[in-house]
């Protein structure tokens, strides 16, 4: 695992560099901002996990990178650089040539990702021939080789079968073969196992990881499974309400999250001394796009929210080896241990609460996150 890569700094060498991306949907009742200032970097061969609740904007970010955003959605700001080239404003035809060849995609549902009327081989061969000069015969050989690589038994026979003749797990293997058949530098895998049977999920992730390593492809892996993140990814990006809230090496983000939302996502706040503090669940739901709160989008659900959080949007700040957008980390030494910081904040809050016990708490804050056991 690559824990020594740091974020920020220059953009030299990054395979994918998304800068301040903003995606809008114009609607009758005004413009909805679905992605608001997301910046991401991905190095060659690296696996970046993207997590966040449903509707956080994970898929939309991936869609924007592949240039497949559908109307009326549009990229309203920011830039996307790939392999040193700006791609968010490429002409459609140039972008098409990049898709599949340089940037492969894997979708969530293998049952619906394949055209039911064409054999698996035909779909592989047409993809290979679109991006290479191989003859039909060579392309077929390559297709069979890909099917072998993704672990489909008897590929010479199965290549002429139709998608409905494959099981869900096998179809996702075919989808992976399709995504990797011309060695893309980047693969965007949007919840590649969510639709699959639990028993095959691990195999598919393992296969994806292994093949991408062999092909030297970087992966942007969208998933809800923290176990997969912990085992597979080099770095993790956490999204909330269309914004990036934290990004950093997997160890730090999973074990020592710095953003209150990430801590909630990871399920628990680790022990501190004798006290174990639990954030059993994050109360409330993610806001709708039309009702994203002012300031920090997370503030109505955040146990640590202050007046400032309700007014000002937090900036990204270096923290540990990652970055975090939270006012708690404003002006704090980046090397501070997050557990220590959260313990201090909780203690201060409790002290304040006791002092103000007579006064009713303000309505907007959501409390009861830190319960003493």
């Amino acid at each position, binding site marked *: 695992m690559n824990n020594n890569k740091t974020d920020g700094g220059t953009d030299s060498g990054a395979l994918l560099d998304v800068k301040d991306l903003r995606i809008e949907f114009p609607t009758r009742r005004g413009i909805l901002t679905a992605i608001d200032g997301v910046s991401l970097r991905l190095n060659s061969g690296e696996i970046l996990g993207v997590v966040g609740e449903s509707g956080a904007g994970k898929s939309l970010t991936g869609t924007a990178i*592949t240039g*497949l955003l559908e*109307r009326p959605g549009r990229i309203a700001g920011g830039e996307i650089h790939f392999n040193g080239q700006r791609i968010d404003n490429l002409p459609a035809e140039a972008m*098409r*040539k*990049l*898709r*599949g*060849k340089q940037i*492969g*995609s894997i*979708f969530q*549902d293998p049952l*619906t*990702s*394949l*055209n*039911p*009327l*064409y*054999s698996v081989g035909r779909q592989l061969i*047409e*993809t290979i021939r*679109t*991006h290479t000069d191989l003859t039909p015969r060579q392309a077929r050989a390559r297709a069979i080789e890909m099917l072998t690589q993704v672990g489909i038994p008897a590929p010479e*026979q199965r290549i*002429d*079968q*139709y998608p*409905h*003749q494959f099981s869900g797990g096998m179809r996702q293997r075919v*989808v992976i073969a*399709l*995504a990797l058949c011309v060695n893309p530098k980047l693969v965007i895998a949007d919840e590649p196992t969510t639709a699959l049977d639990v028993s095959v999920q691990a195999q598919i992730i393992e296969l994806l990881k292994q093949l991408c390593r062999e092909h030297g492809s970087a992966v942007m892996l969208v998933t809800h499974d923290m176990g997969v993140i912990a085992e597979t990814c080099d770095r993790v990006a956490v999204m909330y309400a269309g914004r990036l809230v934290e990004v950093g090496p997997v160890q730090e983000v999973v074990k020592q999250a710095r953003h209150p939302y990430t801590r909630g996502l990871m399920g628990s706040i680790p022990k501190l001394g004798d006290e174990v503090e639990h954030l059993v669940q994050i109360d409330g739901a993610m806001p709708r796009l039309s009702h994203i709160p002012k300031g920090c989008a997370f503030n109505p659900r955040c146990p640590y929210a202050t007046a400032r959080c309700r007014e000002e949007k937090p900036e990204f700040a270096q923290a540990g080896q990652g970055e975090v957008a939270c006012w708690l980390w404003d002006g704090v030494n980046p090397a501070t241990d997050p557990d220590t910081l959260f313990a201090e904040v909780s203690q201060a809050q409790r002290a304040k609460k006791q002092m103000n016990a007579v006064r009713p708490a303000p309505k907007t804050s959501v409390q009861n996150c830190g319960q003493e056991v």
Partner: protein
Amino acid sequence: MLSFLIRRLGQSMLVMLAVALLAFSMFRFVGDPVTNMLSQDASVEEREQLRDSLGLSEPLYVQFSTFVVQAAQGDFGISYRNQRPVSELIAERMPATLELVAVAFIISLLVGVPMGVYSALKSHSWLSHVFQTLSLVGISLPTFVTGILLILTFSVTLNWLPSFGRGEVVNIGWWSTGLLTASGLKSLILPGIMLGLFQVTLIMRLVRAEMMEVLRTDYIRFARARGLSNRAVNFGHALKNTLMPVITIIGLQLGAMIAFAIITETVFQWPGMGFLFIQAVSFVDIPVMSAYLLLVSLIFVVINIIVDMLYFLLDPRLCADRGTANSH
């Protein structure tokens, strides 16, 4: 596939038997054929004689089975009005109707499918909006009105095209065709448009709706994500999936067109089966009416079977063992 085919054939036989029963009962309930065939002052003996010679004194089920057996051999009896075998009359008129329907069908496909595909792919362009509006007009205008408007414009006012009849026809065996002469072709244009117009709008709307649905599917998005050209995605992947469900409707519409041809043939005095049927109705010429009913039903049933078989050819999901074949 074979068992499916046999089952479908069996069902079709049942349908045809039911229709035959209907056609047969027309003889019973719409007046007495003997009265219809003989003059008012025929004697009782003459009546009985005719009754016997027509087999009308036999029990009903015997009559029905005779009717079915004869109909299956193409014998529908003698027309009351023309005093000629009905099968002869129909054989004379069938080419006119089939050519008209074929022309209208081809027009509706050649115009309707591309219009539907275009308005699905470019759903926001102004031309698509024009198509949508036109199709609304086409669907809501009664066909005889469009027919009359066509005649008014192109025959009466501009005097470009004939307003009735088939023009000159050439006989090839028993088949008389209007496709080989200039006047025959010219005569086909207006009725062909009239009969096809409704189908054009229907097919266009159907293809558009179906294709827009298909374009939203994951496998189309995935095909784009694989970097396939627009052409390959739209015409290779999307169109084929679009046409699958459309084929059924188009097939059924072909049957409907043969039935609807009655109106067009009446407006253009087209010497086809529909015109024959209308004339038969006004003379209560039951043998002709029942033969027409049976024939149109048979055509429907046959088209249905063909459509089902097309599905087998086009959709690999219906043919489980097909994928194991080495190539295709």
